[in-house]
């Protein structure tokens, strides 16, 4: 802890001179504090609490609503896993939009954490011949099946390896998260992720105030800023409270299953035990905790 403190004071000292100059030129103290904020993982419990309080106040000022920002750490004895039933998915994209709403994704420019790929039955899982832009009157289309892809929560996540500033990491419950205040926006992780799961805020993100979800997690669905990367977090703000991810709840055909891999009687364990599962791009050794299976 001592080390952190000296680090912080050192930082404050060297930057104070520069930033008092900046402050005079119209930059307010909040912006400076935000600029000097350290990597979330290196903060103490007290510092985190203060940070959260400040954030809630800031959001209230900005959006005029009460917000509940959580910083709840992983619950011991949990390792989250996901399974998706390919034989049930009909490609309706309800999960895509439920995810957008739950996780406050930017509407314009548009960000979708879930991509649903339409594939030809005859070709099997073949990305090169798949289509995300499919748009028929009615799904499912004849001769096609659907493969939704989101962050696969790799046990061996490439995105974490390459990030030059440790702005993204794997939590003890297996969720790979991003500290939006620490990400420099170099997008190396996007080049490294084999599943196109990471999305960049190319412009200022835009969520209508009346649609903002006020139940938030610091590492999850809190509002992002321009120039940072974001991704699926298994709805960390819900799942750490014992709820299902939004995409699991919305799916009209029950194709999406979620649970604790360490719990021997969980549904996800049942599926691993009794169905044959596959993971995408297994040859890359990313070892996803997101499985696909054929329920019927």
């Amino acid at each position: 802890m001592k080390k952190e403190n000296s680090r912080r004071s050192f930082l404050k000292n060297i930057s104070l001179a520069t930033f008092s100059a900046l402050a005079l030129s119209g930059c307010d103290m909040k912006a400076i504090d935000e600029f000097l904020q350290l990597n979330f993982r290196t903060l103490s419990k007290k510092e985190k609490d203060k940070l959260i309080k400040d954030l809630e106040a800031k959001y209230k000022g900005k959006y005029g609503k009460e917000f509940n920002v959580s910083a709840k750490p992983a619950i011991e004895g949990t390792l989250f896993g996901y399974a998706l039933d390919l034989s049930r998915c009909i490609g309706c994209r309800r999960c895509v939009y439920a995810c957008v709403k739950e996780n406050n994704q930017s509407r314009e420019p548009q960000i979708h954490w879930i991509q649903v790929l339409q594939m030809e039955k005859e070709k099997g899982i073949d990305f090169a011949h798949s289509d995300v832009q499919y748009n028929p009157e009615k799904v499912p289309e004849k001769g096609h099946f659907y493969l939704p892809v989101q962050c696969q929560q790799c046990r061996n996540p490439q995105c974490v390896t390459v990030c030059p500033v440790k702005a993204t990491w794997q939590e003890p419950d297996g969720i790979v998260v991003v500290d939006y205040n620490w990400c420099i926006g170099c997008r190396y992780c996007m080049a490294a992720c084999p599943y196109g799961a990471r999305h960049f805020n190319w412009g200022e993100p835009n969520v209508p105030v009346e649609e903002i979800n006020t139940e938030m997690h610091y590492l999850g669905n809190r509002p992002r800023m321009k120039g940072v990367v974001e991704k699926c977090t298994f709805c960390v703000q819900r799942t750490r409270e014992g709820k299902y991810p939004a995409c699991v709840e919305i799916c009209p055909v029950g194709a999406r299953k979620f649970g604790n891999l360490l719990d021997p009687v969980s549904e996800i364990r049942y599926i691993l035990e009794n169905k044959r599962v596959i993971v995408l791009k297994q040859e890359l050794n990313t070892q996803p905790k997101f499985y696909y299976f054929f329920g019927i």
Partner: protein
Amino acid sequence: MNFFRFINGSIKIILRGNKTYYAWLIFLSLLIIWGGFGYLGQLREGLIKSHMRDSVSWAFYIGNFTFLVGVAAAAVMLVIPAYVYNWKPIKEIVIFGELLAVCAVIMCISFIVVDIGNPLRFWHMLPIVGTMNFPSSMLSWDFFVLIAYLFINLFVVTYLLYCIFYKKEYNRKVVLPFVLFSIPMAVAIHTVTAFLYNALPARIFWNSALLAPRFLASAFCSGPAILLILFQILRKTTKFEIKDEAIWRIAELMVYAMFIYLFFTVAELFKEFYSGTEHILYWKYLLFGIGENKEIVVYSWSSIIMGFIAFVLFLIPKTRKNFLTLNIGAVLIYASVYVEKGIALIIPGFTPDVLGQIYVYTPSMTEIRTAAMIFSIGFLLFTFLSKIAIAIVFDDYNIDSLNRDARRERVTNDK
């Protein structure tokens, strides 16, 4: 006191020049202003002003960065042949090579700065104050070697120029280890930059062991091309002496590099096209386009054709030894490698993307303007630094001349 007089004297030197020189300065300044306003737009609205999107998340900026790393590396590696063949002006070659390297590295870092979403958070990458992901992330390695390389070169040129300026004998024991060290460092910056791409199993197009060797070979084509032209200008306008033979020798070495590059590329193409796995898609996109999407094909073929013409011009002794064709070849190979690194290396890495989707990328106006700004600033810096270096090395600009000027000024004031 001396230092201020040095600065003062140097500014005078920078401002001195003929019409062509002024035209060049005005041209660069206009480009900087034009590009600067483009970049301002990006600062205000974000990288949405570029044509990069989630599918193609790195593009023209990082390509320019890669190209300039090559220039920085090759400029210094030219010291090897200068030493081996015992060319006369080896000290001068070291000075101008390293000056070029310094400017190129500065441009590299600028390209990274304009490419990241939050340039103000750059300090997160530093050790101690930030949380540098070392040794895991290749990007932090790259940053590290680039900075080290910048400082080594900066030290060597300033030291050499300082000694000449003060008419002191420079201490070989101090300089030599640094010059010798800068050579493997030159290889290192380029290799690490290649590894930046190479280390991503998700990007099949780059995931080939030949990537780093191909990088080095192509850098050896483009880097010396600049110096080749610079040496001729210096020879015409200053007391810099370099024999025709040395210039032809550089050209000859470039032919070898081009040949090696060609060979590596053919080997790669053979493997991809003969085995015909799905990995072929990226090369297909680069060379022929996929379906309707052929926008990138003009870039790749223009690079190939320019490179090929340059290769032939440099290969045939008669055209190699004719300065007109030699210079045409130098410009062509420079342009060819520029397009290859700027577009043809990066874009197929992302198209089709990891989920097989095609997003057609070509640089946006903002990207072109920002790049023009950085290049112009780099060239301007290089022009100024060279001008001062020329004055020190060839034109008797030194401590004595400063003292003389000061004395003269005092005399006129007294009158």
